[in-house]
């Protein structure tokens, strides 16, 4: 090779490497960043979350930081943007003909960050721990369909008797259920395992210290400063399917309701907005709407398919009289509440299942109760309380963790409507969460406003909470029977029909008055980009459940674009 050729070759190589096509930057995990991505050191996402005690689902559901479930660990399955189940720790799964036995085949490429392979043993260990009454797990009701689960939780059989076992080899996990549960893979969104080895060596909180922490997910723990922040760093040795772009995720602890919007405006965090609570006040929403920049940064999502509703003590007077409950249902103008108070953050609810949720039936339920003050008055009079005379003064409890300014305003509006249309005096009391749940679970709560968000995308979850053994003081035998039978049915069409009938009963019998479905908004800085911020099949651009702090399953397509240079120093 002559010298001349060599020089021109070198020039060519240099020229090419300067051109965009060849300037591909790889991040620490070896993933090529998109061409418009900012330099590597800017690939950091900052979010705000309530302080946490653990990262692990199986240690405590309510004391963990919500993001971690997704990107710190590896559940058996994940959801994509269109709410379809996609493989994660399990590459595929099969079900036996009777619908009782599920076999999950684990991805052999996934290893813990200490080098140990992720095996069925870790899953079996995690589930057995959760079923162990000695562990006192705060979500122990959840896996009830799994064989022997409830018995183990009650201490009647040892935790080793539950239907979660290793299959023919360490990479096969077999889960058996008490009855056919077609929604079982969906429940496995929540199966981020504990490392058996680390747990046995360092105890339940091995993940609270970077020195003892092990992860099998896309991120590992870099720093945990108590009451201040958690820093996740990209896992270079991650063997799974969802390799991310972002080098770091910084979770600052704070009370999002108090300070997230302000911190976002001050440029201290990149995302603001949450799927399980409405942190934006009606005034914040107007501020966003009036500001052309902010309104472009606002993305609305499904959240966790949360429905706000009024509940009653249907076992005792006055609400044991269906006419009274019907009068209430006719007396509340939901449209006005949503248009004026909830605005962008919700849509009118006709039933319990939100449009987009499997089996939702808004059209079928729409006309059961429409706003009709005259009829409401008539029904109340028939029940023996003409113009509200003789009706007790009601105290509407609102659970404090849900009582954002928006929700409290809505509660006040409902109180005023009941006063105006029915002549009933209603006090509204924001009640501290533990006191509220203590009374609700004991079926002692007369009248309340609360909400429920899904745990997995199946009617058996949302409608299941209304069976008479659940938290509500409402009982309908036909409903109980329908939900129980349909839950265990494999025939999808028949199943959907039965659930549809059940939901109709729930609405007609006024088990609750369903007010609005929450469509929470999140703000994303303009430099936060990614495929999953593009519209999904419903045209929704926000990130999706699971993942409460606005950071959903789809975090893995997110990167920081060059625009960031204009915002961050």
């Amino acid at each position, binding site marked *: 090779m002559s010298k001349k050729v060599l020089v021109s070759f070198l020039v060519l190589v240099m020229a090419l490497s300067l051109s965009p096509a060849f300037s591909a930057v790889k991040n620490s995990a070896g993933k090529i960043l998109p061409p418009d991505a900012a330099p590597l050191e800017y690939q950091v996402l900052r979010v705000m979350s309530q302080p946490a005690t653990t990262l692990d689902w199986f240690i405590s559901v309510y004391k963990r930081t919500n993001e971690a479930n997704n990107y710190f660990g590896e559940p058996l399955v994940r959801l994509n943007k269109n709410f379809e189940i996609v493989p994660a720790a399990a590459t595929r799964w099969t079900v036996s003909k009777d619908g009782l036995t599920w076999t999950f085949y684990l991805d052999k490429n996934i290893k813990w960050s200490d080098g140990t392979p992720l095996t069925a043993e870790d899953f079996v260990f995690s589930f057995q721990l959760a079923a162990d009454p000695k562990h006192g797990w705060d979500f122990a009701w959840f896996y009830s369909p799994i064989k022997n689960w409830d018995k183990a939780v009650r201490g009647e059989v040892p935790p080793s008797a539950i239907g979660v076992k290793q299959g023919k080899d360490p990479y096969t996990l077999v889960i058996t259920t008490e009855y056919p549960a077609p929604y079982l893979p969906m429940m496995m969104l929540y199966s981020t395992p504990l490392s058996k080895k680390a747990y046995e060596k360092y105890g339940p909180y091995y993940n609270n210290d970077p020195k003892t922490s092990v992860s099998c997910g896309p991120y590992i723990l870099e720093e945990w400063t108590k009451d201040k922040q958690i820093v996740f760093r990209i896992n270079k040795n991650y063997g799974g399917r969802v390799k991310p772009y972002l080098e770091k995720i910084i979770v600052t602890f704070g009370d999002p309701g108090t300070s997230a919007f302000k911190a976002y405006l001050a440029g201290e965090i990149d995302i603001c907005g949450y799927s399980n609570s409405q942190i934006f006040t009606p005034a914040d929403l107007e*501020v966003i709407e009036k500001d052309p920049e902010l309104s472009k940064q606002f993305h609305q999502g499904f959240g966790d398919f949360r429905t706000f509703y009024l509940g009653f003590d249907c076992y005792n007077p006055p609400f044991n009289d269906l006419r009274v409950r019907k009068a209430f249902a006719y007396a509340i103008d939901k449209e006005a509440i949503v248009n*004026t108070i909830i605005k962008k953050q919700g849509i009118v609810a006709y039933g319990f299942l939100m449009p987009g949720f499997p089996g939702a039936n808004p059209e079928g339920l729409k006309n059961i109760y429409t706003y009709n003050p005259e009829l409401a008055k008539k029904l109340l009079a028939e029940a023996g309380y003409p113009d509200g005379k003789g009706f007790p003064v009601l105290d509407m409890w609102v659970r404090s963790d849900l009582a954002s300014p928006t929700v409290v305003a809505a509660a006040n*509006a409902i109180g005023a409507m009941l006063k105006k249309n029915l002549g009933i005096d209603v006090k509204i009391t924001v009640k501290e969460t533990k006191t509220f749940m203590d009374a609700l679970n004991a079926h002692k709560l007369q009248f309340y406003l609360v909400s429920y968000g899904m745990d997995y995308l199946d009617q058996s979850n949302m409608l299941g909470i209304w069976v008479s053994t659940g938290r509500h003081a409402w009982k309908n035998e036909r409903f109980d029977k329908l939900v129980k039978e349909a839950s265990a049915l494999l025939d999808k069409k028949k199943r959907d029909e039965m659930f549809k009938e059940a939901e109709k009963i729930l609405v007609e019998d006024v088990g609750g008055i369903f007010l609005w479905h929450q469509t929470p908004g999140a703000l994303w800085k303009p430099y936060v980009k990614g495929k999953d911020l593009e519209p999904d099949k419903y045209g929704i651009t926000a990130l999706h459940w699971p993942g409460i702090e606005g950071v959903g399953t789809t975090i893995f397509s997110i990167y920081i674009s060059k625009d960031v240079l204009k915002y961050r120093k």
Partner: protein
Amino acid sequence: MRDVIRVYKKNKLAVFGFFVISIIIVVAILADVISPYRYDEIDLLSFLQPPSIKHPFGTDSIGRDLMTRIIYGARTSLIVGFSVQFIAVGIGVPLGLLAGFYGGRVDYWISRLVEVMTAFPSLLFAIFLMVWLGNGLLNIIIALGVTSWVGICRVTRAKTLEIKSETFVEAAEALGASNSYILFKTIFPNIVRPIIVMIGLGIPQAIFGEASLSFLGFGISDPMPSWGKMIQESLGYLQGYWYIGFFPTLSLAITVLCFNFVADGLRDALDPRMYGRRV
């Protein structure tokens, strides 16, 4: 007594303060008659409206008239402020007098009681009481009253100690005056002034206390307003809707200021040795 009124009248600010507070009290009492709307009356078609002729102070997020709510809020806030201070004075002054006057064992045990009470962080204690008793106006007054007599008790005790050692009390004692004579005729008039100052400061504190409790979800149940609650609710609306927080804060500020004026005037007027003199 006539002297007191005469001296008080000389202080123009004190007269003004008394006048304003009287108006506020009358307004609070007549709330049902003079309010342009009902405090729980919503109008979902005219929400978050800026001040206008129809709604002089604007409307809140569900279209309730803010002027009406401030008028009713005056009632709640004044009831809380006065009742809590009534409890505080009722407990604090007698205990402080006893402790300061008798000293010794009485003082020792009363001081321990004061310390037990202060050992509870008042907010935590109030939260416990509220969870235990349940929400409601009376319970708020109890929870705040039980935690707020300590300051008055300490000041009373300190003042009593101080005055007890002054010559005129010693003289009265030497002349064989009875304990009750010394307590009520010589010591009590002298502690009235600091107590009035304490009440002047205590009333807004009680109103704040109520606001803090409602901030944490233990306030007076909606839809009944109070100034503290209205201020607390306005926090989420500060960006863009200044008037929602401005008027309740202004009402509270004016009231407190006037209480201070009255306290100042009374202080001068009640001073038994300083009739009519100003520095």
